[in-house]
């Protein structure tokens, strides 16, 4: 799907072993499959059905999503940061597309 824009808020620095708060948002209609168009036809379901966040390849959170997640899905959660590294965030669209965003953090 075109025009899908992920946004993440990740701190750039942390102390070793600290937990940091991460906020993610992605622009997506999350069409629920419950709506009808003006002619009374059901608008087909089209959602992101999975979101994952990893740090240096290890899972932070893995969310199975249903149509009851609001338009422009938002998630806030916490991650451990034992060392400097890379956060990777992926959103899996039902249409097969995968949207990815990364963030770097330095532990000092």
């Amino acid at each position: 799907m075109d025009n899908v824009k992920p946004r993440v808020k990740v701190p750039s620095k942390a102390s070793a072993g600290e937990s940091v708060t991460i906020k993610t948002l992605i622009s997506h209609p999350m069409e629920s499959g419950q709506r009808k168009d003006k002619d009374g036809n059901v608008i087909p379901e089209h959602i992101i059905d999975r979101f994952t966040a990893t740090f240096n390849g290890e899972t932070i959170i893995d969310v199975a999503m249903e149509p009851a997640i609001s338009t422009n899905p938002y998630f806030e959660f916490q991650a451990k940061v034992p060392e400097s590294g890379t956060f990777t965030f992926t959103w899996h669209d039902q249409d097969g597309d995968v949207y990815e965003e990364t963030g770097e953090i330095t532990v000092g």
Partner: protein
Amino acid sequence: LALLPFPVSAAVEDAVTEFTGGTEPGEGGVELNAPEIAENGNTVPVEVSAPGASAILLLAAGNPEPVVATFNFGPMAGSQTASTRIRLAKTQDVIAIAKLEDGSFARTTKNVKVTIGGCGG
């Protein structure tokens, strides 16, 4: 949103049983934060939390499809807490069930009054 023909409570219990494998969830060990009154059912902020849990199932008992999301926590989770925004079709119970560290399950429910239903209609 039109009322659907199937009994919603059965759909809820089916989803719970699928998650718990039939184990009866206990009280305590899982928290659910949601507003008492949501003016706009299209985007209702909720937070689930269950220290040590491996997974939390979030359900909206009065929605046409009650399962909202399943949060699975990995080794890099800083806490077993997550916030998101959900759709609620009408005033209803929101339910969180956590799979705790010892393999048992905990359940909590919060009633949310919805002023304008959020079924995307």
